[in-house]
């Protein structure tokens, strides 16, 4: 029975099904830190209804697939974000909202915010705008779904493979590093 599975052809079909399921049922963990948190309710509820795409809120990182970073991240919140990210289960994606996650945005010269989210956790989709409107958010989601469909949203694998690099960046910024190790 194993021979049939790891043969190229059947593996491909399986991946297609998996990606189709992952694409159409995204459970988001809204880590509403910055000003973007207010954009998420309208996108989910009746005005823009993200649920049509199978996108639903998830209460805990264990149940979630997508981690939304909706704004600037101070060093302190970065530590919580990393912990939440590491608690999520594996095919997990990160969407960065707004310019603050891209290049520090309006807090480009502030002493305690992180400028580039990418250095700390792998981001799959950025949505620019100093807080993107719900339409932009839904466009972001659709982009993420296409990436998943093509199997290219592999931020989580990237994080797993060069964990050291990420750890150095993170410890450079976070001083009292009292975090449990990410035991694979």
């Amino acid at each position, binding site marked *: 029975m194993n021979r049939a599975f790891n043969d190229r052809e059947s593996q491909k079909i399986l991946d297609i*099904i*998996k990606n*189709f*399921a*992952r694409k*159409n*049922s995204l*459970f988001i963990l809204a880590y509403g830190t910055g000003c973007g948190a207010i954009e998420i309710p309208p996108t989910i*509820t*009746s*005005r823009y*209804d993200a*649920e*049509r*795409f*199978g996108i*639903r*809120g998830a*209460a*805990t990182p*264990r*149940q979630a*697939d997508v981690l939304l970073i909706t704004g600037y991240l101070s060093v302190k919140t970065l530590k919580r974000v990393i912990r939440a990210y590491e*608690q999520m*289960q*594996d*095919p997990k994606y990160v969407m960065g909202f707004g310019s603050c996650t891209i290049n520090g945005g309006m807090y480009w010269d502030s002493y305690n915010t992180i400028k580039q989210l990418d250095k700390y956790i792998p981001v799959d989709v950025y949505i620019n705008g100093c807080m993107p409107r719900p339409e932009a958010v839904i466009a972001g989601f659709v982009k993420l779904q296409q990436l998943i469909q093509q199997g290219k949203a592999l931020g989580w694998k990237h994080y797993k493979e060069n964990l050291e690099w990420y750890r150095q960046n993170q410890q450079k910024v976070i001083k009292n590093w009292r975090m449990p190790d990410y035991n694979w």
Partner: protein
Amino acid sequence: MNIWNLLLSAIVTTLLGFIIGVTYMGIRRKIVALAQNRYGPPIYQNFLDILKFWSKESNIYHGVMHHLAPLWMIAMAITILLIVPTQYGSKFFENLSFNGDLILILYLMPFGQLGMALGVGQTGNPNSAIGVTRGLSLLVGSEIPFIMALIAVMIQYHTTSVTDLVRIQQEHHTWIMFSSPFAFLAALCVLPAMFHAGPYEVIIAPAELASGPMSEFGGKYLGTMMSAGSIFMFAKLTLFVDVFMGGSTNWLWLIVKTFTVYLFVIAVGIIMPRLRTEQAIRRLWGWPLVFAILAFIQVALF
């Protein structure tokens, strides 16, 4: 009734139960969405959710009991489904319904919930523990009127087994819903509580308790849990239909009946606000208890 036949019918019934249950949940989300003036996900959305959970790569568990938690639920759900007579009269779909006894079913229900509660306990998450205590307290609230209703029916029709009840209703072409209305009313009022719908979903309150007992379950565990939940829901609906609405002789008729009952539950779920635990218990012991007592009086007099 050889073993293979039994196994085959069991598998078919479970699959049917699973599919119907999950589609009911999908329809429920659709109706809730439409009530909230939005399109809502496609009906098969729950299938996708379950499939996504099953396709999760990593799998996090806190220990043996946590690993076994969903198994108690799925074992209970399937067993109850097999015991409750889905198709009256059909040899193939008889499953274990000859064993069907109301007290047995009432005692099977907590089997899953307590097993799952132990797994939840091992995760160590305080929110989930609080959720479980609320779930058990509500169980006390909802079980008593339901049991009184069932006992009233049992005594009126002088039998404790579900199949007998269905046989009586089929033969006399009456529905117990009409012949003992108070028992039906009591059971109906208590039904939303048994599905943790509407005012009684304080157990899995997402904001307050981070989805209560489910908070540490992810990936495959949550998948199994949701499928078990749907089968369990369908089993409870068929039980209700069998006892009060004459059971069914073919699947289509069963689906129609169960869905109408489920509509009532969805309606209550949408309209009613969420209640605190003691308010819920007091409400459950309010009107439903009155109806149950009336049912007893009705049985005692006639």
